[in-house]
């Protein structure tokens, strides 16, 4: 899909951004693997910058119901905004089941859902934000995760910041038993977008120089 935003990214920038996002989620996959003792694959097949209405429509599309579950964390510093990991409600339970393992009964999974989801979201979002912080070479202030339920409008509506843009990532979460699709959304103000563009530009330049900035 081409970028429709006024702050549109070139194809090269888009590819770079997807690469950065994949660095982030592969960090998260490492954490999960460490925790679960099982291979977990996380991948970001596509990246877009869209406005909030479009983001709201994108998360509502294709799911069985408009009910969504999101883990939200806010971040502050040179790069500020909110990060959300979003799943259709039905998929979120599947996600938790995948994480807490088959040994738990369905009832247990329901009991654990809220906490397990918060923690899983926390791991994935932290990994993404850490990757950005790493590229900025500056730590950020990150809040604790909160679980939110509702429609796309609930998640992206919020008061103020109407012209905030959303960095919208599609995320594939896969174990050997399951394959779950969700979204990561970063709601940012204009300075953050500018900062993000700088990161992307630097990243591209470094890649062109042959320096692998992503390696830790």
């Amino acid at each position, binding site marked *: 899909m081409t970028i429709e935003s006024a702050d549109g990214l070139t194809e090269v920038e888009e590819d770079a951004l997807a690469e950065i996002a994949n660095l982030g989620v592969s960090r998260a996959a490492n954490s999960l693997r*460490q*925790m679960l003792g099982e291979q977990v694959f996380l991948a970001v097949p596509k990246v877009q910058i869209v406005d909030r209405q479009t983001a709201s429509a994108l998360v509502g599309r294709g799911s069985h119901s408009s009910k969504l579950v999101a883990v939200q964390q806010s971040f502050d510093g040179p790069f500020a905004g909110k990060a959300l990991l979003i799943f259709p409600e039905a998929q979120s339970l599947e996600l938790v089941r995948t*994480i*807490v393992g088959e040994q738990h009964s369905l009832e247990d999974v*329901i009991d654990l859902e809220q*906490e397990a989801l918060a*923690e899983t979201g926390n*791991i994935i979002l932290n990994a993404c934000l850490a990757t950005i*912080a790493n590229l900025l070479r500056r*730590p950020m202030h990150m809040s604790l995760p909160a679980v939110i339920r509702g429609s796309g409008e609930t998640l992206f509506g919020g008061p103020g910041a109407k012209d905030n843009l959303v960095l919208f990532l599609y995320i594939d979460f896969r174990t050997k038993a399951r394959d779950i699709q969700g979204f990561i959304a970063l709601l940012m103000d204009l300075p953050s977008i500018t900062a993000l563009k700088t990161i992307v530009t630097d990243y591209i330049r470094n890649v062109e120089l042959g320096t692998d900035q992503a390696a830790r």
Partner: protein
Amino acid sequence: MFNWEAVFDVIDAGVIGIDDRYNVVCWNEWIAKGTELSAAAVLGRNLFDVFDGLGKTRLKTAVADAFQYGSSSVLTHSLNKLFPFRNETGQEVIHNVIVRPLPADPIKHCILQITDVSVSVARERVLRDRQNARYHAIVDSAPDAIITTSPDRTIQWFNAAAERTFAMSVDALREQRIDTLLTGPENLTEILAAHDMKGAASGTAVQVHGTKRDGVSAYFEVSFAGWNADGRRFITTIWRDVTERVAAENALYAAREALRKSNEELEQRVIERTNEREVVLRQLHESQKMETIGQLTGGVAHDFNNLLAVILGSLSLLRKGLPPDPRTSRLLDGAIQGAERGATLTKRLLAFARRQELKLEAVEVQKLIPEMHDFLRQTIGPAISVVLDIPSDIPPVKIDANQLELALMNLAVNSRDAMPNGGTLTISCRTETTEMKAPPGLPQSDYIRINVADTGEGMNDATLAKAMEPFFTTKGIGKGTGLGLSMVHGLTAQCGGTMTISSSVGRGTTVSLWLPAANAGDLMAALTPQAPQASLQNGRRLRILLVDDDYLVRANTALMMSDLGHTVIEASSGKSALEILQLDNRIQLVVTDYLMPGMNGLDLAKAIRGVTPKLPIILSTGYADIRSPLDMVFPRLPKPYTQDELAKILDAAVK
């Protein structure tokens, strides 16, 4: 100065502070209690050295990220086992850990906040158990068997009713294919798959046949709905025992079938009755038609007969009065013959109309018919053999013997004409009672049936239907009058019997005459000869009172009487006749027409008899409607008559 350290020690949560080398810098009272490690024992030590295995948990990554990127992390009991906390009773403390960096650039310190969630976890567990208990109470108290199947349609779960219904142990039922519950031809696996694929609405039901506990077979209505879990498709089936309902439906169906059948039978019977009714109506119509034709024919014949009487009378007078001339005599004879043939015709018509004059008496057919044998032979010719089959004990029948002979001759001639190439004519007699298959309309009595059967060409149905109608003939023009069968029919009817015809094309025709058996009174009448009436001298001149309403007839008869030398006083009605008789006591003979308006001839005769019993009276009539016993008392003058006939009867009356 506020004592911050005291705050750390009193809050109801564990607080551990570490520096960027993970060395413990802060260790509050809560954590000291839970780990039984005092602050003094751990301060300055690397946190991950204090607890074995803690370095292998995600806590280390979370702490590293906190220092490097400023990440805040949540580590919950659901996914992690971190610190080996025990409470005062020695039980494991379920806890969550939050890792937060203290804001600084670069980050120098990090706080681990540990919260005890044992209580809330226990509460959730209790709540869940209660919820489960309620859920199980509902599901297990359901009267219908509830069974869920895995995607491969093996039984995955079932309720208490399922166990009760199918009497299978938990182990026997689980992991069985759901089709093992069926005994009918249904394939529930396929049905479920097909419905589920179509996305059929929940509550769709199918009827299957299965076996309950103790081998009792039963019908079940299975409703089902699919659901997804763990990315797999499950189907919940609810089995309702509908055996009684199916039995009731079957009974209802059988009852409906029976009703439908009885309706059909009823309809059939209605059709039969309707057909019978139509047959009867047709017969009634036929008999009414014959009746009407008879009345019409009788009326016409009567008037025509009167005219013939006038013509014959006038002609006979004319012949007397004219000088003998061969030419004139020939003309006159021709005229008289024509008129006489006309008289014969009217007689036949009257026979058909059942108005001929009959002399009913007891006739022994076993004598009468053999006597006709030679004459029959002559009439029908040598090509046809005649067979008579008449038992000698046949009782006598009540009929006019001459008319019976005539009727049999008529039938024999018909048979002859039906057998141009020869054949057999059989005349047989049988005694019948109406209990046997008598034709409809006959009153209950004993009957003699005379059959006249031929082996001729027979009649088709259309011909048969019209055979008894007057003037209906199949013979060529000039060969038959069409009055034969109708005359015979009229005769039998007038005698109190009937005539039937059965015939089939190519096989012959049988005409049956049903004649009433004669009773004792008839036998007496046959034996008693008629008493002579008067004793007047032959050739006397008489004073005659002639009564007739028809002027032409009266005038003609008066002319004939005067010509015979009698004195004739004419009266046009019974009333004036009686007046004349009162005034004129010299009248020696009364000749009266029978059918007159007002007082008829018989009434007049009776009235005269009442006054002057010895006065002879002659009834002149073409009718035979006089049926009373008295009708034998008065001599008859049948119309039309010639002068000779008139003279004879006048003489006879006064002898």
